[in-house]
């Protein structure tokens, strides 16, 4: 994809930042969200992140690739284990990366 295309994408992403952080501040009259609205707004980001990350970790060129020979699967298992042990974001990332590197090294040899 071209240079200009990427800049257009980035400017749009910046607008997405502005709209979501400042949109409700357009009006000076405070208003409240219902509990159901708040709940849906909390769930939506998780759903989108899951829908982006699942294909990135489990597919290769659109085909199922999650076998024991794919280091990404081991990284996923490590990250989920770290989460189940109650670890925070950085430890989860590090466990995923370390296990990914180790699995890559072992599987390549």
């Amino acid at each position, binding site marked *: *994809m071209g*240079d200009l295309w*990427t*800049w*257009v*994408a*980035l400017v749009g*992403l*910046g607008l*997405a*930042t*502005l709209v*979501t*952080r*400042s*949109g409700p*501040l*357009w009006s*000076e*009259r*405070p*208003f*409240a969200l219902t509990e*159901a609205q*708040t709940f*849906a*707004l*909390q*769930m*939506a*980001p*998780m*759903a*989108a*992140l*899951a*829908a*982006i*990350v*699942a*294909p*990135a*970790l*489990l*597919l290769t060129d*659109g085909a*199922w690739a999650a076998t024991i020979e794919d280091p990404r699967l081991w*990284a*996923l298992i490590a*990250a*989920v284990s770290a*989460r189940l042990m109650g670890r925070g*974001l*950085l430890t*989860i*990332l590090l466990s*995923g*990366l370390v296990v*990914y590197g180790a699995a*890559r090294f072992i599987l390549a040899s």
Partner: protein
Amino acid sequence: MSALHSSEAPPKMPTVGFPLYRDPQVRRAIRDLSPGLLAMAAWGLVTGLAMIESGLSTAHAVGMSLLVYAGAAQLASLPLIAAGAPLLLIWASALVINLRFLIYAVSQQPWMSRLPRAKRLLHGYFTTDILAVFGAQRAQDGWDSQSMVRYFRTGAVLCWVVWQTASLLGIFLAASLPREEGLRVLPALAILALLLPMIRSRPALACVLVSAFASLVFKGLPLNLGLFLATLAGVLTAVLLNRKAAQHG
């Protein structure tokens, strides 16, 4: 001079020459945010690295950091940009991932309502997760809007400087290192690390599992429409489960 001798409460705004670090709102913001800023720095570094590893040029990565200033949305859009996904899809997914900020903005509205519109929008742009969470606590403590604005501005500057410094450091670090094939997984693992701690309830877990599963089932749909359908399926599942739990509880 007469103001000095009046019995009114001392002025809340610092006068010229009043050292900023002695300002109680500024100090409180620094104290509240410091632990979070450390994590933010680490995460900014990771985001900087991930932008380059996903294939963005240094100029694009710097531009993204300065323009977008939204870690989760940046990370999530990297695989989509790399795949050359339709622009509308890239923007829409960033909007969805940013939706939590609508909740923050609504909660900030009461103390921001005295500012003119342009300033409200500008302040809103600089909202971060930690700033919104601690700001809400101070507002609950009953702080007046002037104090809140000063608290928020201090936090906004701190967050912005820390994040951008770390992110730019990550960008130039990654750009100066030889391309390491093994780090191409970094953007995906960073998104995963961001997502997993967010799952704190049963409906949230169902939401994530259904959405992940649906994204794999719908992977063949044109224009990455699967991403939308999967997100929708995940949210609907969570909403239904939540409603059911509310009925039974």
